[in-house]
C-alpha cells in the first residue's frame, strides 16, 4: 500500500513532465505568422493579408485564427489549400483581401490562434492606404496593381558586403541579389562595378536565375542571387564600389499576384516593359595593416596560412638536383602570396621556382594552396641542411601577425664533382650543359658606332628634310608655271628677257669702248636702249618710231624727264655714230654711265 501510494505521485509527475515536454516540443515546432503582399496601397486597391500556421506534427483540429479587422473592409476571406513547405512542414493558411475607405496607416493584428490550450500570436503588421483614383483602374490596371511610383519598393537589387570594416588584403564578400515581387524575364548585365582598388575574384555569377522566396520587411519577395565576389582591398581608406546595373523585362500589366502560386506561375504577359535596376553603391572602410608587431619577413600576406616543405631525393650523387616543394595553404588571397624568402641556402644553387596554385571558395571564403617547387643544385658533397623556411602573415580576425615555419630538411650528397662557382644568375659550365642553353656571345669589334640621338625623329635635320620636300615641290611648281608663261606669253617672255639682253649688250659695248671703236660702241648703246624699250613695250625695235616710243612710254607712266633723258642719250649716240670726229674714251664712259642709268630708270618706270 505504502509502495503503491509512493508510485502514484511518481507516475503522475512523470506524466506531467512528459506532457509538458511534448507540449513544449509541440510549441517549438509551431510557427504562426502574418504577412502582407505589400505594405501600402491606394484606397481603390487591396492588400492581401495571409496568416500561416506551420507545424511539423499533424494537429487534429485547427480553429480559425482570430484577428481584429474592424477598421478595415474585408473584401474576401478564404482558407487556402494545405501546403507542404521545403522542410516538409505542414502549412495551413488563411487569406484576407483588405481595403480601406479612408487613407491612413492601420495596424493589423496581432492574430491569435489557440491550439491545445496554448495561444499563438503573430506580430502586428502596419499597412498604409493612400488616396487613389478610379481612373487608373479604368485605364486597364488591375485593382491590386501597386502604384508605379512604388516600383523601386517592389523591384530592387540588394547589395550585401561582409565585413564592412576590414584590413588591407582581407577578403570582403559582396553579394548582389535581385528582389522582386513581379515575374521578370530577360535579365541582362548593363554595368558591372570596376572594383577599382581591389583585387577581385568571382565567387558566383548567375548564368540563369534560380529563385527562392524570402520575407523582407513582412513582405514576401522572390529573390534571385545574381553575383558574389571576393574582393581584396589593395590600399587603406574608404573605398566606394560603384552600383551594379541590370535590365529586366516586366509584364506591362503587372500586378501583385493574389496568391503565392501565381507568383511562382509561368504565365507572363506578352506585353512587357524593360526597366533598368541599379544596386545601391557600397562603401567599406579599409584599415591599414598595423605596424606594431610586424615581422621583418612579412611580405604582405593577409589571411590564415600554414606552410610545409618536402625534398626529394634526400640521398643523391653530387651534380644531381634536389626538388624542394614548399606549400602554403589557408584562407586568403592565395594568388597574391609571394614566394617566401629561403634565406641563405649554403651549399646549394637555387633556381627560380615553378609555381602552382589551387584555390576554391568554401562558404564564400577563398581557400587554397600555393606551391613553390625549387630545383636545388648541390655545390658540394656531404650532409647538407635545407634550413627551416619562415612565413609571416597578418591574421585579420585576431588582428595580429603570425609566423609559421617548416621543419629543417637534410640531404646527403655523395661523390666528387667539378668545383662549381657560386653565383646567383650566371650559369656554370655544368648548368649550361644541363639546360642546353646559355646567353649568346657578344657582337664582334666594329669600325663605327652610332652616336648622338638614338632616334631619327629626335634630330632637327630629319624634320627639316620633311619640310624641304613640300618646299621643293612648291618651287618646282612655280618654276614650271614661269616656264609655261615664257612659252605662251611673248610680252612676258620679252620683258623677262630684256634685262639679261641689256646686260649682254652693255658688256659688248664695253668691249667696243676698250677697243676704241666709238662707232660700234655708240651703235651698241643705241641698240641696247631701243631693244630694252621695245621688249618692255612688246613692239618691234626696228619699227618703233621716236614719236611712237615717246607716246607709249608716256602711256606706261614714264616721267617726262626720263623721256627727255632717253631722247638725249639716243641723240648723242646718233651724233657720235655719224660724226667725223671720233668720240673720246671719257665721253664713251659718260655715255655708258648714262645708258646704265637710263636703263635702270626705265626698268623702274615700266615695272
Amino acid at each position, binding site marked *: 500500500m505504502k509502495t503503491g501510494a509512493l508510485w502514484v505521485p511518481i507516475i503522475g509527475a512523470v506524466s506531467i513532465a512528459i506532457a509538458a515536454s511534448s507540449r513544449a516540443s509541440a510549441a517549438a515546432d509551431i510557427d504562426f505568422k502574418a504577412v502582407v503582399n505589400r505594405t501600402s496601397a491606394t484606397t481603390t486597391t487591396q492588400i492581401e493579408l495571409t496568416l500561416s500556421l506551420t507545424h511539423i506534427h499533424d494537429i487534429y483540429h485547427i480553429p480559425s485564427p482570430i484577428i481584429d479587422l474592424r477598421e478595415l473592409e474585408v473584401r474576401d476571406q478564404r482558407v487556402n489549400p494545405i501546403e507542404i513547405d521545403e522542410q516538409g512542414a505542414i502549412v495551413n493558411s488563411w487569406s484576407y483581401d483588405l481595403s480601406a475607405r479612408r487613407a491612413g496607416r492601420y495596424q493589423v493584428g496581432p492574430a491569435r490562434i489557440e491550439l491545445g490550450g496554448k495561444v499563438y500570436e503573430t506580430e502586428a503588421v502596419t499597412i498604409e492606404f493612400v488616396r487613389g483614383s478610379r481612373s487608373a483602374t479604368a485605364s486597364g490596371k488591375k485593382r491590386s496593381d501597386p502604384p508605379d511610383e512604388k516600383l523601386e519598393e517592389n523591384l530592387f537589387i540588394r547589395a550585401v558586403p561582409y565585413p564592412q570594416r576590414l584590413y*588591407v588584403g582581407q577578403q570582403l564578400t559582396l553579394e548582389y541579389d535581385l528582389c522582386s515581387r513581379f515575374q521578370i524575364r530577360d535579365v541582362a548585365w548593363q554595368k558591372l562595378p570596376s572594383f577599382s582598388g581591389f583585387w577581385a575574384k568571382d565567387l558566383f555569377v548567375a548564368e540563369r536565375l534560380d529563385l527562392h522566396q524570402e520575407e523582407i520587411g513582412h513582405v514576401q519577395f522572390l529573390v534571385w542571387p545574381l553575383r558574389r565576389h571576393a574582393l581584396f582591398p589593395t590600399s587603406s581608406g574608404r573605398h566606394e564600389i560603384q552600383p551594379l546595373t541590370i535590365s529586366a523585362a516586366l509584364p506591362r500589366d503587372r500586378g501583385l499576384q493574389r496568391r503565392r502560386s501565381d507568383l511562382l506561375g509561368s504565365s507572363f504577359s506578352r506585353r512587357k516593359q524593360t526597366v533598368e535596376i541599379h544596386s545601391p553603391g557600397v562603401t567599406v572602410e579599409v584599415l591599414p595593416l598595423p605596424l606594431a608587431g610586424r615581422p621583418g619577413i612579412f611580405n604582405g600576406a593577409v589571411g590564415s596560412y600554414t606552410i610545409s616543405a618536402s625534398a626529394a631525393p634526400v640521398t643523391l650523387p653530387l651534380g644531381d638536383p634536389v626538388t624542394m616543394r614548399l606549400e602554403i595553404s589557408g584562407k586568403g588571397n592565395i594568388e597574391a602570396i609571394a614566394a617566401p624568402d629561403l634565406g641563405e641556402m649554403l651549399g646549394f644553387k637555387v633556381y627560380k621556382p615553378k609555381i602552382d596554385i589551387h584555390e576554391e571558395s568554401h562558404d564564400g571564403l577563398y581557400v587554397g594552396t600555393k606551391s613553390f617547387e625549387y630545383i636545388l643544385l648541390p655545390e658540394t658533397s656531404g650532409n647538407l641542411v635545407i634550413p627551416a623556411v619562415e612565413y609571416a602573415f597578418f591574421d585579420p580576425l585576431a588582428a595580429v601577425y603570425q609566423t609559421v615555419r617548416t621543419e629543417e630538411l637534410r640531404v646527403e650528397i655523395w661523390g666528387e664533382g667539378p668545383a662549381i662557382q657560386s653565383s646567383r644568375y650566371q650559369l656554370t659550365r655544368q648548368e649550361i650543359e644541363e639546360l642546353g642553353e646559355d646567353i649568346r656571345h657578344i657582337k664582334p669589334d666594329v669600325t663605327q658606332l652610332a652616336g648622338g640621338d638614338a632616334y631619327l625623329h629626335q634630330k632637327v635635320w630629319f624634320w627639316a628634310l620633311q619640310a624641304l620636300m613640300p618646299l621643293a615641290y612648291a618651287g618646282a611648281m612655280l618654276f614650271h608655271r614661269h616656264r609655261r608663261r615664257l612659252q605662251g606669253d611673248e610680252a612676258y617672255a620679252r620683258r623677262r628677257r630684256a634685262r639679261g639682253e641689256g646686260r649682254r649688250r652693255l658688256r659688248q659695248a664695253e668691249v667696243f669702248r676698250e677697243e676704241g671703236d666709238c662707232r660700234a660702241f655708240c651703235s651698241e648703246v643705241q641698240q641696247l636702249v631701243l631693244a630694252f624699250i621695245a621688249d618692255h613695250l612688246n613692239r618691234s625695235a626696228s619699227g618703233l618710231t621716236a614719236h611712237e616710243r615717246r607716246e607709249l612710254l608716256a602711256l606706261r607712266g614714264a616721267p617726262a624727264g626720263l623721256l627727255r633723258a632717253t631722247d638725249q642719250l639716243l641723240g648723242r649716240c646718233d651724233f657720235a655714230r655719224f660724226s667725223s670726229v671720233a668720240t673720246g674714251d671719257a665721253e664713251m664712259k659718260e655715255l655708258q654711265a648714262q645708258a646704265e642709268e637710263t636703263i635702270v630708270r626705265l626698268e623702274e618706270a615700266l615695272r
Partner: protein
Amino acid sequence: MRAGILWAALFSVLAAQAEGVAQAAAVGLFAEANQQYRDGAYEDARRKYLEVVGADVVDARLFYNLGNACFKSDRLGEAILWYERARLLSPRDEDIGANLRFASRIRKDRESGVGEDPVWRFLVGLYELPSPNEISVTFTFLLSALFAMGIRRLWSGRRKEGALWVSLLVAGAVLTTLTGLFGAMRIHQLETDTYAIVTAREATARTAPDAEETAVFVIHEGTRVRVDRSEGTWLLIRLSSGLWGWILAENATVV
C-alpha cells in the same frame, strides 16, 4: 659673306675631325671591352662598355654587349635593362631577342598574362617588328617618292597620266599616310609610355610614397614595370597584372 662661308666650312671640318677622333676612341674602347669580355673579366668589360655609353654612343651592338657583361657579372636587372634598350634600337636582332628571353626566364617574377596568348604575341611582334628609325626612313622615302612623282608630272607636261601612274600615286599616298600614322603612334608611345626595369635585388611596393606605408607586394631584379608617375624619390609602378604600388626610384631604371 665669303668669310662667313669660310668660317662655317672650317668649323664643319673641325667638328667632323673632332667627331672622327671621338668615334675612333669609342671604337677602340669597345674593342678593348670586347677583349676583356673574351678573357672572362666581365666586370672590367662592363665598366669599359659603360665608358663608351658615357661618350654619347647609342648603338644596339654596344648595349647588347653591355647586357652580356652585366649578365656575366651577376647583374640580371641591368642585363635586362640593356637588352631592352638594344631591342628598342634593333627589334629584329636575333641575338638580342634570344638573350632577353633567356635572362627573363631566369628572373624571379613572372609577368602574368604576358606572352601567353599566341595571337596577342603575334600581334605585338608585328607591331614591334620595324624600329622607329626604320619607320622614319620608310616614311621619308615614300614622301620623297610621292613628291618626285608630282614633280615628274609637272616636267612631263602631260595633261593626263596613265592608269599605272595614277595607281602608283594612290598606292603611294595611302602607304605614306599609313606609315605616317603608324610612325606617329610608335613615336607617341615611345615618348609617353615609360617602362623601367628593377635593378635592385628586390623592391617592396607600398600603397603610398612613404617607407612607413603598407607593403603590397615585392618585385625582384629584372622585372619590367610601367612607370605611371614619380614623386620625389618614389616611382608609382604598375605590373602587367594591373597591380600598382610605389617603389623607391633607386631600385629601378627607366628603359
